[in-house]
C-alpha cells in the first residue's frame, strides 16, 4: 500500500505543479512528474513476491507465479513514449512562444493574448 501512496504523492505533486506554477516550462516539468507517477503506479501493480524478471531463462515450463506480470510493463513502455512525445511537442511550442512573446510567464502571456 505504501508504494501506491508514493505514486499518489508524485501524482498530486505533478498536478499541483501544473496548475499552480506560473512559468510554462515549470508546468511542463510538473506534467512529466505527473506522468512518471502513473508509470510508477502501474509498475507497482506488476510486482509479485518471489517472482523474477519476466524474461524466460533456458526453457523449461514457465509457471505464472515465478515471473512478474509482463502486461503492465508493456503498457508502461507505451506510457513513457507518450510522455516523451508530449514533452517534445510542448518544448517546440515553448520555443515558438518564447520567440514570439519574449516571455514564458503565464500571467504576462494571458495579458498579451487578450
Amino acid at each position: 500500500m505504501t508504494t501506491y501512496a508514493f505514486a499518489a504523492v508524485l501524482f498530486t505533486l505533478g498536478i499541483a505543479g501544473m496548475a499552480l506554477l506560473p512559468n510554462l516550462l515549470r508546468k511542463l516539468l510538473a506534467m512529466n512528474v505527473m506522468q512518471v507517477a502513473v508509470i510508477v503506479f502501474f509498475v507497482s501493480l506488476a510486482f509479485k513476491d518471489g517472482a523474477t524478471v519476466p524474461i524466460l531463462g533456458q526453457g523449461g515450463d514457465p509457471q505464472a507465479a515465478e515471473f512478474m506480470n509482463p502486461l503492465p510493463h508493456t503498457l508502461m513502455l507505451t506510457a513513457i513514449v507518450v510522455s516523451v512525445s508530449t514533452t517534445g511537442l510542448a518544448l517546440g511550442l515553448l520555443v515558438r512562444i518564447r520567440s514570439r512573446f519574449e516571455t514564458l510567464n503565464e500571467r504576462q502571456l494571458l495579458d498579451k493574448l487578450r
Partner: protein
Amino acid sequence: MAEGHLISIGLLAAMVVSAACALAVKDLLTAAALFGAFSFLTATWFALLGAVDVAFTEACVGGALTTILFVSTAFRTSRRFD
C-alpha cells in the same frame, strides 16, 4: 523480501524529494539536472522491481532524451525562469 522493501521505500523517498526540488528551483539548468536525477532514480526503482524493459526505456528515453531537450530549450530561451 523485507530488506528489498526497505530499499524500494528509500528509492521512492529519494524520487519524491528530487521531483519536489526540480519543481521548486528557479534556475532552468538546475531544474533539468534534478529532473534527470529523478528519472534515473525512477529507472533504478523499476529495475529493483524487476521491470527491466521499463527501466531501460525510462533511463534512455525519459532520463537522457528529456533532459537533453530541456537543456537545449534553456539555451534557446533563457536560463532564469521569468
